[in-house]
């Protein structure tokens, strides 16, 4: 449909009839799927999917199977109890891990949404001398790898007494990041200015315009930013590894690593419970993606074209 409507002459497209409309690739040799196409796609999909199946089947394996490392690709045992046992049998506060992850990810997302919407709105709408230079700086900072600032930031947070608290992982999000500012700015730039001009005529101030007019229209991009921040914070490993060293404060991504480290080299980690933990880490991300995929897709495209052109 999309391709058909792009053709210069709509009448021609319509005349071609329903079949062409429904299937814009019909009849062209470049789009012909041979049995080999299916064979390759089936094999590749299977290869991409096998690790998931393994994750599930091992999470359902008994402790005995796990200790012998005698796993099968398809599940043969169904120890659903593992999903309860993971919280009690590992000797680690796994429930607390999950709670910590939820806390860190949620607060990080709130911080990014609040700050990037405010800053992005200002860059898109308000006029001020020096704005151009500031925006150049925003773009330039995207190139700086995090490793450059990692050590001084650590020393700063240590000085502030923030080590072994969530603060180093959460607080920087309230000061936004360049990429999100850029996304919001691009999004707001494409909203017509008529509405906020009218609102200003009616006596709404700059903050009023932001709060009442622009913010309600920003939610697609803010949803995307929230999802992006949630997934990044949820899966972050290096940040917690640097800042959190007590088990009580660890998020699940780091806690899992502790679950696999055994006291001696010959001992196998409790793989079945580690895989339950991996599922706990994975499922929320798939759920979030599924719920917000429309917005993520939009941001991907914007980010993609922004990075290229």
């Amino acid at each position, binding site marked *: 449909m999309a391709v058909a409507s792009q053709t210069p002459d709509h009448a021609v497209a319509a005349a071609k009839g329903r079949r062409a409309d429904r299937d814009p690739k019909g009849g062209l040799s470049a789009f012909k799927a041979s049995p080999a196409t299916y064979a390759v796609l089936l094999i590749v999909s299977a290869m991409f999917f096998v690790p998931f199946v393994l994750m599930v089947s091992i999470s359902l394996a008994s402790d005995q199977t796990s200790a012998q490392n005698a796993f099968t690709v398809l599940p043969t045992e169904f120890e659903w109890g593992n999903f309860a046992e993971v919280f009690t049998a590992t000797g680690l506060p796994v429930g607390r891990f999950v709670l910590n992850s939820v806390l860190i990810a949620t607060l990080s997302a709130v911080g990014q949404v609040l700050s990037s919407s405010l800053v992005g709105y200002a860059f898109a709408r*308000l006029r001020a001398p020096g704005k151009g230079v500031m925006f150049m700086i925003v773009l330039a900072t995207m190139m700086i*790898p995090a490793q450059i600032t990692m050590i001084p930031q650590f020393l700063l947070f240590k000085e502030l007494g923030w080590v072994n608290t969530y603060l180093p992982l959460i607080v920087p999000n309230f000061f936004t990041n360049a990429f999100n500012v850029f996304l919001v700015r691009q999004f707001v730039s494409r909203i017509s200015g008529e509405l906020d001009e009218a609102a200003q005529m009616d006596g709404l101030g700059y903050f009023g315009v932001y709060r009442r007019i622009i913010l309600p229209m920003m939610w697609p991009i803010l949803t995307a930013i929230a999802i992006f921040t949630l997934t990044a914070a949820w899966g972050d490993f290096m940040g917690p590894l640097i800042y959190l060293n007590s088990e009580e404060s660890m998020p699940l991504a780091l806690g899992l690593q502790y679950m696999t480290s055994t006291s001696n080299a010959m001992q196998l980690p409790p793989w079945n419970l580690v895989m339950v933990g991996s599922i706990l880490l994975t499922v929320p991300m798939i759920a979030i993606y599924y719920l917000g995929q429309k917005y993520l897709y939009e941001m991907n495209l914007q980010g993609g074209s922004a990075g290229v052109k």
Partner: protein
Amino acid sequence: MSNVVVDEAPGAARETRGAGRRRPKMSGRRKKEALYFWLFISPWLIGFVGFLLGPMIASVYISLTEWDSFTPPEWVGLENYSRALTEDPIFWKALGNTFYFAAISVPLGLVVGVWLANLLNKRVRGRKLFRTFIYLPTLVPLVATAMVFKMVLAPSGPFNDLLGWFGIDGPQWLLSATWIKPALIILSVWGAGGATVLLLSAMNGIPRELYEAAEIDGASPWRQFWSVTFPQITPVIFFNLIMGLIGAFQIFSQVYILAPNNNVGGPDNASQMMVTLLFQEAFSFYHFGYASAIAWLLFIVILLFTVIAFRTARKWVFYETEVR
């Protein structure tokens, strides 16, 4: 009397506003707008100064000192840099490993991505299902992926069992200095679905007429791919190349988790990467000066490759807007 005042007032106001426009100085309204601009961007500005610019300057200084953060820093000039580049064999090994990883995983990921996208772009039944299967791994947090691969690639793990069916005696992947890097590359290619989806959406946007014209000229599907599809998706390939390179040079979590018996960078430094080395120097040995120098060297390497990629882009990245 009152009439006169009322008549005068708007005129006076108009006059001052007109004068304001002619003067280069800003009007009150403009001043207020500028004030609000700076107020609104202050979260970013504070973050920029406090978490980026300040730390960057500090990082330059720290890289020129020897400092464990407990005793006062000792000025050593460029010694940290010269030590990394001339004396420390592990630095060169880490740099070589990182190159090896980036040089294989990034092109391989792109080739797999383009190949799969091209297959999915055909008229395949169940395309959505295939696409989901291929995209799903990119949604798995890296830590969980690494856990699965650590288990799959264990000496008596499922992957070697599979190779055993074909009579292949699999290597000790993560315990072998030869095979740990290929293992890391396999793990990274498992995430090729991200590029595939972007490339597929780019392919979907290619106008049908181009293929119709190629078909009339008698071009084979293979020729059509190279002459129509490929040029049209080069901007997306380029974007994925840049992002992939930057990401590959910063590889960390996988290496840390897959490390045998918490011997990060092992075995025999075969999986030591730039960032794992930096991390160990900083947070295991408290060599903050040396670690900062490595961070800057990493930045230079990334910058160099990005610049090279952008330079060569003119030769092979195709923008339709340039033709028109």
